[in-house]
């Protein structure tokens, strides 16, 4: 009995330590960024572990710059649209690729994957031409458009994999109930795919949110730019000076919405959605 209790306590402690380790590993650099964001000037070059004084000047200067707030808005718009597009095309494609057996399926999958095999710099010029041809230059639409090049293959593949794992009987039941593929997809599969969708959605959202090269190249004016570009363009008094404080403050500011987003959507990552569906 006593040993059992000890074991339980040990397990619990072990888990807590593990958790603490994970948190330290993932959050510490960010924490350090927060610490840094409250520093200014030469304080930056001192190593400190704690926030000694809350100096909001960095935040104020970042927010005070009107275009930064605007770029957050652009990022929100672009990322949401990207995710929605990726989900819309990705889910339907995943249904086709994951649930219907047809010839050329693996070829399609490979082609989709092939799109993400070129380095970004290599496609940059070509994409730039396409975007100019479509007259989307310096327009968030250009970003939404170009981001599908990396979000779509990703969503298609992930969703296909997860879609494949859902029990066959469910689809059969829907077919017998007279559901069209569309209905089956939307009424039966999508509700069961929430963990996968929330995950891919979040990952794609963040990928779009943080994309830099395309965003830099396809937009020109401050009012069209997205957050990473805006951050990259934060500079100090001169060419070589890095405004660390501002940079960190800006990073903290743009990370917060993402954290909130994750907090909201992680609720969707729940287990046992298919429990009770089939026997055996």
């Amino acid at each position, binding site marked *: 009995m006593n040993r059992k209790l000890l074991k339980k306590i040990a397990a619990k402690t072990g*888990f807590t330590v*593990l*958790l603490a380790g*994970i*948190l330290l*590993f*993932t*959050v510490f*650099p960010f924490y350090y960024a927060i610490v840094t964001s409250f520093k200014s000037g030469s304080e930056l070059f*001192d*190593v400190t*572990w704690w926030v000694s004084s809350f100096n909001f000047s960095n935040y104020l200067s970042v927010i005070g710059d009107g275009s930064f707030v605007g770029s957050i808005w652009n990022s929100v718009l672009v990322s949401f649209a990207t995710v929605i597009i990726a989900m819309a095309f990705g889910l339907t*494609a995943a249904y*086709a690729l994951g649930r*219907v057996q*047809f010839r050329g399926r693996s070829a399609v999958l490979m*082609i*989709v994957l*092939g799109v*993400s*095999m*070129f*380095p*970004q*710099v*290599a496609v*940059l010029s*070509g*994409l730039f*031409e396409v975007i100019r041809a479509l007259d989307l230059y310096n327009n968030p639409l250009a970003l939404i458009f*170009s981001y*599908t090049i990396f979000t*779509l293959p990703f969503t*298609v*593949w992930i969703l296909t*994999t*997860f879609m494949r*794992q859902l029990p066959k009987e469910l689809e059969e039941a829907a077919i017998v109930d007279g559901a069209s*593929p*569309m209905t089956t997809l939307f009424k039966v599969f999508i509700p069961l795919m929430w963990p*996968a969708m929330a995950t891919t959605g979040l*990952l794609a959202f*963040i990928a779009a949110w*943080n994309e*830099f090269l395309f965003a830099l190249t396809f937009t020109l004016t401050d009012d069209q730019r997205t957050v*990473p570009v805006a*951050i990259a363009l934060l500079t100090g008094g001169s060419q070589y000076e890095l405004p*660390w404080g501002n940079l960190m403050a800006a*990073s903290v500011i*743009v990370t917060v919405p*993402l*954290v*909130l987003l*994750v*907090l909201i959507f*992680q*609720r969707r990552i729940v287990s*046992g*959605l*298919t429990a009770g569906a089939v026997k055996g």
Partner: protein
Amino acid sequence: MAHTTPAPVETAAGGKSPARALPAKRQASRVRRQRLRAAWLFLIPMLVVLAAVAGWPLMRTIWFSFTDASFSNISEYGLVGFENYLVYDNGAWYGVLADPTWWNAVWNTLFFTVVSVGMETVLGLIIALTLNAQFRGRGWVRAATLIPWAVPTIVSAKMWGWMLHDQFGIINEMLLGIGLISEPLNWTANADLSMWAVIMVDVWKTTPFMALLTLAALQMLPSDCYEAAKVDGIHPVRVFFKVTLPLILPALMVAIIFRVLDALRVFDVIYVLTSNSADTMSMSVYARQQLVEFQDVGYGSAASTVLFLVIALLTISYLYLGRKQIGGEA
């Protein structure tokens, strides 16, 4: 009342008449055809979008790889065949494939990919398993673990550059503090350490990606066979390797594929942390250097195309090896 055509009644043993010609495999039935049509209808929008976005840029890159186009004057170029890839000139080989720097970059990239993706997978699994447990504040922890992925790459690479700084970097401070090292390490400058520094930053940054995907896979597992394992008294470690891992393998494989693709094309982290240093130069950095810094669109495109081929080759062989898990049941 029953006009049954009684099937020839046979005993169980003598059931099969030996020479019944199996009719030729029938054509796909209409239902199947309908499903097929639906499938293609579902696929086509996606393919069209992809083609619209990627078709031209990819073709163009491949095309330019056979030319001597230069960035500063991209409209005038001549076809040079495979000169950018490999050419014998004046008693020496030139071209991407003959460039030791390129092969060094290939080697760096492969090393980087194997090590960092390997570490990310293991760490991601551990984190995902932890986050899979039920505990108070799980949502917050989940959100927190995703932070590294959420910090823009440029920022995080710079942040780590700062943290890894030998003079005022907190990492050295920390290691000195706990007595692991006796003097500050030159993380990014030391040839022996810089690749590890890059790997460390990449692992930190992309582990959440693996963790989250793995978590989703874990959460979508059928739950009842775990109860069976519990009752069978199987050790959790064994359950993990024999039940959980095989079941999440398809998702894990896909996650790994995408990580590998990204790792093989790694650019930002290396570029920001160590610039063009040969110790850490990756294939993408090489391609970019040719394209942007050296203005050589032809050569850079050739490097990109070779990079594409390397990735495609690796991916295909990986998929081939793992086809059971990925191509499995539908």
